[in-house]
């Protein structure tokens, strides 16, 4: 028996090792070991005041910090019985979409594209495909600047607080950004075409898919959790009843199941569940994919992210217009501090993220619970690797490893998130 390990898999966020056991060309076992040390965010928020929680949890992830910040604010507001204004929601959605632009562009171009172009990193593109690199950086930069416009900086938003915002952009800034987003739609469309042109293996995951879904719009901020195959739709407040977490020996991150099945969350789950609510150009791109429907080929998570880039540009342009036209205020609403329990969920770039907190009478945290998208996806990644690896085990060693790594990278893992 031979054992192959790929240590510190490159171009993913965090430290993980792929472990494959081969007998001849038969795959005996394959899984992802998460060597990222545990980080203890749940015990760390205990004893912090309710208004410090989003500062702590934002530091779970430097890529999706706006999502962790916003999700924990929602949970705290749920516990304190706070209703935020429509304007606050719009601004928070811009923060969420800023992280989509930033994350998806980074993941697609900097982490994934080198696989398909046969390169070790994105840097050689500067010589060979300067236009591609330029487009990547342009989209990513727009995401950062959208987060900066609303949150004050690209990473770890400053202005988003319990009940609202301490500062918001002016009408002229919002209008200028709207124009920039509209100009970016074409770049996003080209991105979707590029990723659609890359060959991906034909593969169907056996998984369930979970994402937020909302009757109003493509869900990223509001909505219930919906299951694609089981067909249910449940309030996020019940998340502990529909997601089970297990400790597994080979990983510092827990694995999740729903109704006993591993499941996938992220762009592909959202597109499957809410694809009908995409903005026009994004819907057009989805309808014209060479692969037809995305279904459950997890390799197509990349293309789904690209489609979400188009949607994000179109949608945020509308949000900017609404913020200029509709008025209202995002000044933090008044509230009483009291004991309580609250849950918040949003769609981070990599999938649904859940936070919940119990507060004492003075608003200090008694307990906290967080489930990140990657923690939800890891069990399914192992299942997919077990199904996929045998189909490519006959390939030469390097190619075999590359294909398995491609599957891993399609998941857009964030291992440091997973060991929060």
């Amino acid at each position, binding site marked *: 028996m031979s054992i192959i390990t790929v240590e*510190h898999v*490159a*171009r993913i*966020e*965090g*430290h993980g090792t792929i472990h494959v056991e081969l007998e001849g060309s038969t795959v005996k076992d394959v899984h992802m070991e998460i060597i990222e*040390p*545990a*980080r*203890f965010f*749940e*015990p*760390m928020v*205990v*004893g*912090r005041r309710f208004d*410090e929680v989003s*500062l*702590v949890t934002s*530091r*779970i*992830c*430097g*890529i999706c*910090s706006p999502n962790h910040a916003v999700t924990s604010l929602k949970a705290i507001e749920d516990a304190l019985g706070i209703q935020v204004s429509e304007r606050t929601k719009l601004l928070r959605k811009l923060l969420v979409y800023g992280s989509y632009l930033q994350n998806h562009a*980074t993941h697609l171009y*900097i982490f994934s594209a*080198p696989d398909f172009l046969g390169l*070790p*990193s*994105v*840097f050689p593109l*500067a010589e060979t495909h300067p236009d591609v690199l330029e487009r990547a*950086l*342009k989209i*990513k*930069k727009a995401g*950062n600047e959208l987060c900066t416009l609303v949150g*004050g*900086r*690209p*990473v*770890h938003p*400053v*202005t988003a*607080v319990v009940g609202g915002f*301490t*500062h918001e952009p002016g009408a002229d800034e919002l209008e200028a950004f709207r124009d920039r987003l509209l100009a970016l739609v074409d770049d996003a469309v080209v991105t979707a075409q590029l990723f659609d042109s890359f060959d991906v293996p034909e593969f169907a995951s056996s998984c369930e898919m979970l994402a937020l879904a909302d009757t109003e719009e493509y869900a990223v901020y509001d909505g219930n959790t919906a299951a694609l195959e089981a067909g249910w739709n449940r309030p996020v407040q019940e998340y502990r009843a529909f997601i089970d977490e297990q*400790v597994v020996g080979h990983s*510092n991150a*827990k694995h999740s199941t729903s109704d006993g099945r591993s499941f996938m969350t992220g762009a592909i789950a959202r597109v499957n569940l809410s694809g009908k609510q995409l903005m026009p150009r994004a819907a057009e791109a989805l309808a014209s994919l060479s692969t037809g429907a995305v279904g459950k080929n997890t390799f197509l998570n990349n293309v789904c992210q690209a489609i979400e880039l188009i949607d994000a540009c179109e949608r945020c342009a509308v949000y900017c217009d609404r913020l200029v036209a509709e008025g209202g205020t995002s000044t933090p609403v008044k509230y009483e501090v009291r004991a309580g329990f609250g849950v918040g969920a949003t769609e981070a770039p990599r999938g649904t993220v859940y936070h919940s907190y119990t507060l004492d009478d003075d608003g200090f945290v008694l307990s906290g619970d967080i489930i990140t998208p990657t923690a939800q996806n890891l069990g399914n990644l192992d299942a997919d690797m077990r199904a996929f690896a045998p189909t490519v085990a006959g390939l030469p060693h390097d190619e075999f490893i590359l294909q398995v790594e491609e599957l891993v990278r399609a998941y857009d893992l964030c291992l*440091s998130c997973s060991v929060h």
Partner: protein
Amino acid sequence: MAPRVVVVGLASDFGCQVQITNIEDHLLEMLDVIDLGYWQLASSGHMPAEYDIAVVEGAVTTLEHVELLKRLRKTASVVMTIGTCAHTGGIPALANRCDLDAAYSAVYGEGSDVARGRCAPGPVHSVIDVDYQVPGCPIDTDEFLAVLSKALQGLADPLPGDPMCAVCKTKENVCLLDRGEICLGLVTRTGCGAKCPSLGRPCTGCRGLAPDANFDAARKVLASKGFDPNELDRRFDLYNAVREGVR
């Protein structure tokens, strides 16, 4: 030959490395003057045997981190830390305030072995000497470029020692203490341009303790404004749980 730079992450959220990727406009220029020898976040490949500058993000939380830092110090002529995690222990060092054994069982259930190789979280300079520091959670991209270019030229870059209130005043911000909010700008090292107060939010101390700060006086200021003076210490813990580690 262009100096070879390696970028290494310890316990962190990668936010500071993300901030490096956020120099989009200058990324390519930067790649002209340095040889980016290793950057796990952005490239396949292994750590080279020789390098000149080691850029370190994150707090020290495992024995493996300790070994890695010693190796970096031996090989590199310059060690530069980025971010609060590396500078003060930052948010990861908040774990020092928890009962870690209980925390392990809470997260992983009784009797799990994930605790392997763990040590009390702390800043990089608690293990090795550090030549340049870029504080902040996250770092400011321009400040990073400025410090890196000083490191490349071998120029000194002392961190400012004074607290940020003076800078905040020059921004003509209404003092948050007078608006009923506890602001840690009283004791926090300046250099961010009073970022948070300028956006209406109190400073929470991410740049660490200003060596010239007077904690006692600051407590009295809080008391005189009607706040609980102990809140200064409790809140300052957020990014500075390893207080003596701040240089």
